[in-house]
């Protein structure tokens, strides 16, 4: 005789089957049966956050730093609406994630029940896919599909909405081995003829650039990208999402490109003759104005798993749809097997040109300043952590300085909200990173505006003893807003001054953490060293930085890549 178990138990058993050992959530009426089942077992650990947005960001940080599917659990109604910012954040950056949300009982759906929202409707535009489970017999199959869809192809968040009565109903539990869907079959291998065309174009290049995005990180292709780049001796630039995909300390790295990218990367991008785009999507923050970008004649090879990313903003010449590491492997073996070599003479001239651009030293700042420069704090953090920390950030100036000055040599070490640009992401994401990497150093670079958007999570950090190091670059302004107001709105700083700031040291202490306030440049290094010596404690470091500092270089909105404002 078959044993029947409840939908709640089935859900938890599915998570166990998927090898999930850590989920982030917040209980409520619609998910009480699920929480009851979580209580009865110890394979899946539940982390209680203080706000549902943080649950999703934490699951997101967990996923980004580990390449496992992040899992969040929230209740119906406000639980879900609070989670939406987190879901949209993960969607814009293609992060594999499964969100389980409670729903009012089936019979109450559509009757404006207490804590009812149309979850599937609200989340539809910001998930890869979503499901409303209508019968307990569909539950296991649906969860299996959710994990499969979230983690294959171009990854993304998948939501499973489970009405409360479904978690009470019983059926036999069978977890399917695999999923077959006639309407979803992501490609893996690239088209051989296209790869051949790409190889020919690569070898004909005189001024090549490799432009690598977040797809390299998501698909674990850093090794292949590095091999290709070094074998070809081509210059490589990484997007904000792609940092760590190619070692930043290597000679061939030109650093980040885009709105706040380096002079050499942006100039090379604009004036190259062959562009090899790998897991990148020609975002507006990366290439600026597409018309200006297209003014220069260049051939573009574009490798991406998502056909809709290809020729979306910029027309490309050799599209290759496929999983990045698979395509790169093919490409490398094809290039190595061939007799033809790239034009070494032309490449030498190109490198000389790049070195001229590099010598412009576009990231220079006043190192003698008597006020703490934010860039210097990030540089010191890099030094103190020997470049080995996981770094999360919020959104704004501090995010750009972190991206510019912390040299990521390894993938998955840099965790930030690139697409959606979600302030409040940094702290909860750092929690997820720490759970996925309990032995590693985790720093959250933030600002006094961003950190206050999810500051309540200091409580979660205390409950689970997460020894995060919070680097608060406190300039008493929403820095990036202030910078735009200075440049484009006649110095009218409308509502960008952060008035009535809390005493962050006492705030941290009231949550049971260590707080530090650092006001002099000469104290920065010592304070950071001291903070990392406190291995078991969260340290909130409030750095009082220069209010007038701006992020350079800058490509103003709507301008072209070579139209940078430089220091």
């Amino acid at each position, binding site marked *: 005789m078959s044993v029947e178990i409840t939908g709640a138990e089935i859900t938890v058993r599915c998570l166990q089957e998927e090898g999930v050992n850590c989920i982030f959530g917040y209980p409520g009426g619609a998910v009480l049966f699920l929480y009851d089942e979580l209580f009865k077992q110890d394979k899946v650990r539940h982390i209680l956050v203080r706000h549902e947005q943080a649950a999703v960001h934490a699951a997101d940080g967990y996923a980004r730093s580990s390449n496992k599917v992040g899992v969040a659990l929230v209740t119906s109604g406000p639980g879900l609406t609070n989670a939406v910012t987190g879901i949209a954040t993960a969607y814009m950056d293609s992060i594999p994630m499964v969100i389980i949300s409670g729903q009012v009982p089936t019979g109450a759906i559509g009757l404006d029940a207490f804590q009812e929202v149309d979850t599937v409707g609200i989340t*539809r535009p910001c998930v890869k896919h979503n499901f*409303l489970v209508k019968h307990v017999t569909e539950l296991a199959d649906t969860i299996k599909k959710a994990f499969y*869809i979230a983690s294959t192809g171009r990854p993304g968040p998948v939501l499973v909405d489970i009405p409360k009565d479904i978690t009470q109903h019983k059926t036999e539990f069978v977890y399917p081995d695999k999923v077959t869907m006639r*309407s*979803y079959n992501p490609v893996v291998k690239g088209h051989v003829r296209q790869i051949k065309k790409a190889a020919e174009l690569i070898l004909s290049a005189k001024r090549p650039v490799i432009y690598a995005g977040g797809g390299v990180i998501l698909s674990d292709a850093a090794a292949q990208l590095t091999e290709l780049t070094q074998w070809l001796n081509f210059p490589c630039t990484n997007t904000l999402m792609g940092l760590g995909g190619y070692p930043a300390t290597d000679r061939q790295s030109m650093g980040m490109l885009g709105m706040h990218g380096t002079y050499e990367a942006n100039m090379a991008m604009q004036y190259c003759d062959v562009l090899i785009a790998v897991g990148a999507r020609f975002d507006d923050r990366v290439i600026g104005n597409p018309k200006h970008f297209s003014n220069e004649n260049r051939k573009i090879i574009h490798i991406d798993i998502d*056909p*809709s990313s*290809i020729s979306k903003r910029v027309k490309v010449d050799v599209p290759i749809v496929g999983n990045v590491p698979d395509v790169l492997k093919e490409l490398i073996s094809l290039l190595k097997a061939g007799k033809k070599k790239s034009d070494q003479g032309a490449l030498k001239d190109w490198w000389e040109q790049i070195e001229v651009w590099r010598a412009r030293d576009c990231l220079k700042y006043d190192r003698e300043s008597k006020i703490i420069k934010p860039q210097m704090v990030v540089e010191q953090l890099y030094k103190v952590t020997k470049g080995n920390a996981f770094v999360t950030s919020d959104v704004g100036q501090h995010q750009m300085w972190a991206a510019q000055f912390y040299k990521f040599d390894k993938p998955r070490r840099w965790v930030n909200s690139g697409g959606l640009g979600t302030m409040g992401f940094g702290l909860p994401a750092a929690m997820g990173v720490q759970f996925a990497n309990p032995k590693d150093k985790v720093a959250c670079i933030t600002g006094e505006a961003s950190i206050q958007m999810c500051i309540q999570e200091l409580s979660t950090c205390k409950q689970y003893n997460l020894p995060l190091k919070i680097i608060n670059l406190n300039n008493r302004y929403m820095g990036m807003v202030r910078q735009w107001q200075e440049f484009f709105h006649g110095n009218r700083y409308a509502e960008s001054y952060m008035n009535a700031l809390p005493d962050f040291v006492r705030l941290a202490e009231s949550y049971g953490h260590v707080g530090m306030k650092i006001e002099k440049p000469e104290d920065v290094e010592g304070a950071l060293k001291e903070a990392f010596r406190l291995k078991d404690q969260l340290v909130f470091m409030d750095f009082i930085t220069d209010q007038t500092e701006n992020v350079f270089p800058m490509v103003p909105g709507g301008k072209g890549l070579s139209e940078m404002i430089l220091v």
Partner: protein
Amino acid sequence: MENEAGALSRVAGLFSARGYNIESLSVAPTEDPTLSRMTLVTVGSDEVVEQVTKQLNKLIEVVKVIDLNDGNHTERELMLVKVRAVGQDREEIKRLVDIFRGCIIDVTDKSYTIELTGTSSKLDAFIDTIEKSSVLETVRTGASGIGRGEWVLKV
């Protein structure tokens, strides 16, 4: 596409979210009840249509997307029109309906209800031909299309 609740709203939502245009949309289950077939008419440059196709293909419940304009195809739309029909207009309208190969499917002493099938432009032409003031009500299904010849869309 999969004949599932919510599939239609994903398509409609995609068009509004990305700023694409829906001229008309018609959908119903096929001979295989697990599948629905939708004919969607949109306007845009080649680049936009290419993006629309790619984005539609990305929807999990969409099984296959074809652009009927890539080959020869035939399309039909159904329209029901209620017109004022009194006095000598009754004969004139009847004649017009015959010319357009439509039929009158409901009659009162003051009105006709006309059924007309054809390409969307033929239906437009009929409306233009009939005197504007006599049209009381129209309802149209949007175009349904199918490829010409023996080629079939298989899943």
